[in-house]
C-alpha cells in the first residue's frame, strides 16, 4: 500500500524547494523548517516503503511500476517510474535520514546567514530531490536526469559563499573556482556516462532496469559493445565519485558551507557513483576485465587520497581526502566481488558467484556505514569551525575541555573510520579486505590491491587520529583561546544521534543486511542471503579466525599510537620524517601529487589555447590567406584598399573557398564510396 507511492519520496523535497522558493523569505528560519519537514516526510515514507517491501511477498524480486513518458519511433519508449529493491531501500533510508539531521543542524550552523538562508534551504532541498530521485528511478534515463540535477545543485551550493564569504574575498574567489571545477570535472565523467547509455540503448532498445537486468536479454546482446558501454558508464562513476584520475574536484569542493560538504560526502552526490555501479552490477559482472579495472581504480584512489591526507593542516580537507579514500574502498569491493562473479559466470561455479556477491554487500555496507560516520565527522568539524572560526588545525588544540560533546562524538566517528574493533567501519572495512583477498587467489592484481588497502587502513587510522589529537588534545592553540564554547543544541543533538549510528550501524550485518542483494545473473534470479545462497555471514566465521584481521587491527592501533606519540606526547617529532617540510615527498603531498597543476595545464593551457588558436585562425589566418588570394584575383590595387572595404570581400572569397572545399569533399566522398 505504500510502495505505490514511492514516487512521492523525491517529490516531497521538490515541493519544499518550490515552497521555499516562493514563500521562504516570509517564514521563520527562511524556509529551514520546510526543508526539515520535507526530508523527514521522505524518510518516514522511505521507512514505510522499505518495511512493506522487505516483509512483503514479492521480496526479494524488485517491484517496478512505470508510466509512459514519451515514445520514440524506432521501437522504444521512455518511461517514468520507480524501482524498489533492497538496494533502493537502504539508499533512500540513509540518504533521507542523514539529510534530515543535516538540515536540523543547518538551523544552528547557518543561523547567522540572514536572507541567504532561503537560497541555501531551497538548494539543499533540490539537492535531496536529485539524490532520492536517482535512487528510486526505474530506468537509466530517468536516473541520468536526477544525476544532472544533483550536479547542478552541487555547483550552486559549493559556490554558495562566492559572494561575501565570511572569510573575505580570497575565499570567495576560491569558492567560485571550486564550484566551476566540480561542475566541469564531473561533467567530463557525465559525457562518458551519456555515451555509455547510448550504447546500452542501441543494444537493448530500452533503458528500463527491468529489461536490462534480465539475463536472457543480456545474453542476447553483443558482449564487446556491452563491455565498452560499462567502461564508459564507469567513466561517469569516476567523475561523480571522485575516483582517480578525476578525484581532484572533491577537496576543492570544501569551499562550500560545511553542512553542504557533509551532504555531498555522506548522504548524496559522491554516493551516486558507487550506487550506479551497484545498480548496474548485473551488467558490470559480464566481463571480468572490466571488474579488474574497476578494482584497480578503487585501490589506487584509496591510497593516493589517503597519502594526501597525511600532512594536511586543514580539518575539512583531511576529511575530504578520507572520503575519496573510503570511496576507493567501496569501488574496490565492488570490483573484486564483481571479478569473482564474472569468473563464476564463465566457469559456471555457483560458489564463486556467492563469494563475489558478498563484494556487492561489502561495497553497499561500507557505503552506508561511511554515510553515518562521515556525516558525523563533517558535522563535528563544522561545530569546531563554528566555535573557533578557522579551519587550520595548527591553531586549534586542547578543544576537548571547551566542547565535550563535539569532541566525544568526533572520537566515535574517528574510531569508526579507523576500523577500531566493533565500530561500524571495522565490520565493513574487513569485509572489503576479505573480498579483495578472496579475489587475490584468482588474480594476482587483487593481492596487490589487498596490500594497498591494508596500508591505506593504517594510514587512515594515523591521519584521523592526527586530526583528532591536533584538534582536541595537546596545548591550546591560538584560535582555541577565542573559542565560543559548545555549539547550540540544534547542532549537538544531531551529532549525538549520528554518533549512535556511526558506532552501531555495523551490527546490521549481523541481523540480515546482507540479505538485501538480489539480482538476476542466471535465469530465474539469484539472491545472496535473501534466497538461494548462504550470505555474507560466513565471512564472519573467518573474521575472527583469520590472522589478517588481527593484522589490520594491530596496524590501526599502531597508527593511532604513532599519532598519539607525535601530536600529544610529542616524543616523536613529525619533522624528522620530512626534513621539516623540505623533503620531496612532503612537497608532493602538499601539492596533491601535482594533479591540480596538471589539470590546469591541460584544461587552461591546452583547452583554452586551442579555442584561442581556432579563433585566431578563423579571424586572421583564414582571412589573411583569403585576403591574399582575393588580392591576387581582383588585382593589386584592390588589395591595398583593404582598409576602406573592411574585410567584406575576404568573407565573400571565403564563400568561394568554401565552395571549392565542398566540391573537393563531394568528389572525395564519391571516390571513397566507389561511386566514381
Amino acid at each position, binding site marked *: 500500500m505504500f510502495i505505490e507511492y514511492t514516487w512521492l519520496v523525491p517529490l516531497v523535497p521538490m515541493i519544499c524547494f518550490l515552497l521555499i522558493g516562493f514563500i521562504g523569505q516570509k517564514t521563520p528560519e527562511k524556509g529551514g523548517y520546510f526543508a526539515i519537514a520535507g526530508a523527514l516526510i521522505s524518510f518516514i515514507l522511505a521507512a514505510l516503503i522499505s518495511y512493506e517491501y522487505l516483509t512483503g511477498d514479492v521480496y526479494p524480486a524488485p517491484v517496478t511500476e512505470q508510466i509512459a513518458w*514519451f515514445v520514440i519511433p524506432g521501437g522504444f519508449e521512455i518511461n517514468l517510474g520507480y524501482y524498489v529493491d533492497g538496494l533502493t531501500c537502504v539508499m533512500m533510508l540513509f540518504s533521507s535520514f542523514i539529510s534530515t539531521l543535516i538540515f536540523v543542524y543547518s538551523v544552528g550552523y547557518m543561523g547567522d546567514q540572514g536572507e541567504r538562508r532561503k537560497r541555501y534551504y531551497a538548494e539543499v532541498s533540490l539537492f535531496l530531490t536529485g539524490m532520492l530521485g536517482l535512487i528510486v528511478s526505474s530506468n537509466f534515463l530517468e536516473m541520468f536526469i536526477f544525476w544532472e540535477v544533483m550536479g547542478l545543485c552541487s*555547483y550552486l551550493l559549493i559556490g554558495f559563499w562566492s559572494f561575501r564569504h565570511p572569510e573575505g574575498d580570497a575565499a570567495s574567489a576560491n569558492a567560485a573556482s571550486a564550484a566551476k571545477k566540480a561542475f566541469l570535472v564531473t561533467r567530463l565523467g557525465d559525457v562518458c556516462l551519456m*555515451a555509455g547509455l547510448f550504447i546500452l540503448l542501441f543494444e537493448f532498445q530500452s533503458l528500463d532496469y527491468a529489461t536490462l537486468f534480465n539475463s536472457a536479454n543480456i545474453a542476447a546482446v553483443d558482449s564487446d559493445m556491452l563491455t565498452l558501454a560499462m567502461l564508459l558508464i564507469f567513466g561517469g562513476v569516476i567523475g561523480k565519485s571522485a575516483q582517480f584520475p578525476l578525484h581532484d574536484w572533491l577537496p576543492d569542493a570544501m569551499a562550500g558551507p560545511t553542512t553542504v560538504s557533509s551532504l555531498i560526502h555522506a548522504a548524496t552526490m559522491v554516493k551516486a557513483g558507487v550506487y550506479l555501479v551497484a545498480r548496474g552490477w548485473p551488467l558490470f559482472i559480464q566481463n571480468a576485465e572490466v571488474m579488474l579495472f574497476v578494482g584497480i581504480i578503487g585501490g589506487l584512489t584509496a591510497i593516493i587520497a589517503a597519502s594526501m591526507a597525511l600532512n594536511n593542516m586543514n580539518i575539512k580537507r583531511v576529511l575530504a581526502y578520507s572520503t575519496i579514500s573510503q570511496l576507493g574502498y567501496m569501488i574496490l569491493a565492488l570490483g573484486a566481488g564483481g571479478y569473482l562473479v564474472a569468473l563464476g559466470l564463465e566457469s559456471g561455479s555457483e560458489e564463486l558467484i556467492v563469494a563475489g556477491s558478498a563484494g556487492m554487500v561489502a561495497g553497499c555496507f561500507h557505503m552506508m556505514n561511511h554515510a553515518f560516520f562521515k556525516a558525523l565527522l563533517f558535522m563535528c568539524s563544522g561545530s569546531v569551525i563554528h566555535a573557533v572560526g578557522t579551519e587550520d588545525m595548527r591553531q586549534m588544540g586542547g578543544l576537548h575541555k571547551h566542547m565535550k560533546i563535539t569532541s566525544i562524538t568526533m572520537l566515535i566517528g574517528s574510531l569508526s573510520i579507523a576500523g577500531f574493533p566493533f565500530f561500524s567501519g571495522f565490520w565493513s572495512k574487513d569485509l572489503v579486505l576479505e573480498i579483495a583477498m578472496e579475489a587475490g587467489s584468482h588474480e594476482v592484481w587483487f593481492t596487490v590491491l589487498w596490500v594497498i588497502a591494508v596500508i591505506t587502513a593504517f594510514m587512515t587510522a594515523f591521519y584521523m587520529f592526527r586530526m583528532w589529537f591536533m584538534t582536541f588534545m595537546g596545548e591550546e592553540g591560538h584560535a582555541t583561546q577565542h573559542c565560543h564554547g559548545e555549539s547550540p543544541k540544534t547542532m549537538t543533538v544531531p551529532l549525538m544521534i549520528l554518533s549512535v549510528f556511526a558506532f552501531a550501524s555495523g551490527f546490521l550485518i549481523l541481523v540480515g543486511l546482507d540479505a538485501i542483494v538480489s539480482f538476476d545473473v542466471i535465469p530465474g534470479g539469484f539472491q545472496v542471503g535473501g534466497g538461494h545462497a548462504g550470505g555474507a555471514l560466513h565471512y564472519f566465521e573467518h573474521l575472527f579466525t583469520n590472522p589478517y584481521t588481527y593484522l589490520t587491527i594491530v596496524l590501526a592501533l599502531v597508527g593511532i599510537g604513532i599519532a598519539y606519540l607525535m601530536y600529544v606526547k610529542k616524543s616523536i617529532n613529525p619533522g624528522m620524517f620530512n626534513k621539516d617540510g623540505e623533503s620531496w615527498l612532503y612537497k608532493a603531498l602538499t601539492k596533491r601529487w601535482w594533479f591540480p597543476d596538471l589539470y590546469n595545464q591541460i584544461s587552461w593551457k591546452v583547452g583554452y589555447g586551442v579555442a584561442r588558436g581556432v579563433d585566431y585562425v*578563423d579571424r586572421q589566418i583564414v582571412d589573411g590567406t583569403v585576403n591574399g588570394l582575393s588580392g591576387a584575383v581582383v588585382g593589386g590595387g584592390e588589395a591595398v584598399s583593404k582598409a576602406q572595404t573592411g574585410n567584406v570581400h575576404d568573407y565573400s572569397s571565403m564563400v568561394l573557398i*568554401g565552395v571549392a572545399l565542398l566540391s573537393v569533399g*563531394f568528389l572525395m566522398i564519391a571516390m571513397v*564510396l566507389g*561511386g566514381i
Partner: protein
Amino acid sequence: MDMTAIFGDYTAIAPLVFLIVAALILPGVQLLGKNRNITWAVGLVLAVVSMVVNIMMLTDGYVGAALDLFEYNAYSGLLILLFSIVLVLMLLVSNASVETTRFNTGAYYALIFAATLGMMFVVLSSDLLTIFVGVELTSISSYAAVSMKRNDPRAAEAAVKYVVVGGMSTALTLYGISMIYGLSGTTDIAALAAWVQTLPEINLLLGVGIVAMVAGYGFKIAAVPFHMWAPDVYEGAATPLSMFLATGSKKMGLSVFFQIFLVMFVAVASVSFLGETVQYLFAIIAAITMTVGNIVAIAQNNIKRMLAYSSVAQAGYILIVMAVMSEYALSSGLFHMFTHVFMKGGAFLIVGALICAGVGEMISDYRGLAKKAPFLAAAMMLFLFSLAGIPPLAGFTSKFFLFSSTLYGMEGAVDSTWVWLAFIAVLNSAISLYYYARVVKAMYIEKGDNTEKIKVPAPFMVAIVICLVGVIVLGVYPQLVFDLCESAAAALLGPYLL
C-alpha cells in the same frame, strides 16, 4: 471552426494573409497615427490572429493547396507556427527595446512582417523557384532591417557584410538551381525526387549543382565554412533582430535543406552511391559545423558573439538529420528547432532586456547579476543550461531525440552507420558547457561592482516568461509538440518513402 468557409480557395495561405495586410498597412498606420504604440498594437494583433488561425488549421489537420504554388500540410503548418512564435516574441519586445524604438517604426515593422512572410512562403512551397523567391524575400528584408541601426558603426559594417556575402550566396544558389534544371528539366521537387531515383550513377554536373546549392543555402544556416557573417551580424544588429535571425531565419534555412535535399535524396539514401555521397557530405558539414561553432565560442567575450557561435553549433546538431535521412531524425530535428527557438530566443531576449537597462554586452558586464536581477539571472541560467543539454530542460530532451535518431535506420531498424556522429555531438555538448558555465559563473559567483536592482521593461519580462515556460514544459512533456513534429515529418517525407 472550418477555415475554408471563411477563406475559400485561399485557405492554404490564410495565416499569411494577415501578415501581408500588416506589412502593407503598418507604414500607413504610422504615417497617419504618428504614434508608435498604435502601430505596434495593430501589428501585434495581426500577428497573434495569424498564429491563432494557423493553430486552428493545424489542429484540424487541414491539408490543401492554393494558387497552384502553395501547399499547406502538417509540415508547413508546424513551421508556420514556429515562425509566428518567433514573430510574436520579436514584436512583443520591439516597442520596448531602446535598440529598436529609434528606428523608423513603420518601415521596421513592414520589414519584419515581410521577412516572416518570406519564411512562410518557403515552407508552403514545393518548387525550387518558389523556395528561392521566399528565401530572397526574407533575406532582402533582413538586410534592410539590420542596416536600420545606423548610428552604430558595427551595425553598418554588419549590414554591408550581410548584403555582400548574402548576394554571393544567392548567385550560387541560382547557379545550382539552373544546373539542376538543365539536367532534369524540372524545378518541381517531387519530380526531382523521382528523377534522382532513375539516375544510373553519380552525375558530376549534378554534383556541381548540389554543391552550389548547398553552399548557397549553407550561408543561410551559417554552416561552416559559410558562417563568418553570423557573429558579425548578430553582434551588430539590434538584439531583438539578432534573436529574429538566429531563431527564425536560420530555421527557414534548415527547412530549405529538409524540403529540397532531404526530399530529393531520402528515397536513395543508403541505397545508391549518390544518396550515400550526399549523406556523407552533410555528415561532414554537420561534424565540422558543430565543432568549430563550439570551440570558437569558448574564446568569445561578447555574449552576442558567443550566442552566435553557439547558434552555428546548434545548426550543426540539426544537420545530423541530413546525414541520417530518416523520418524519425526529421521529427527530432524539427523538435530541436522548436526548443531552440525558446532557449536561444530567451537568451537573446535577456541580453536585449539588459541592454535596455544599461548593462553591456560583454560577459564581464554580467558579474553579480544574480544580485541585481535574480529572476533574469535564473532564467538566463536555465536557457544556457538548456542549450548545453542539461536535463530536465527542453534542450536535453530534444538533443536526446536528435542524437538517438542516429541509431535508427529507415524502418526503425538499428543501424550503426552514424553512431560516430552522435559521439561527436555528445562531445560537443560537453565542450559547450564550458562557455555557458562561464556566463553562469559571472552571474552567480563573481562579484558585481554594485548590487542595485535592475528593472527591465515589462514586455521583455512577458516574452522571457513565455520562453521559460517553453523550455521547462517541452523538457518535461516533450510529447506535446513532438506528436506534431512526427506528423510533420510524415507529411513531408511520407510520399517519398518506399
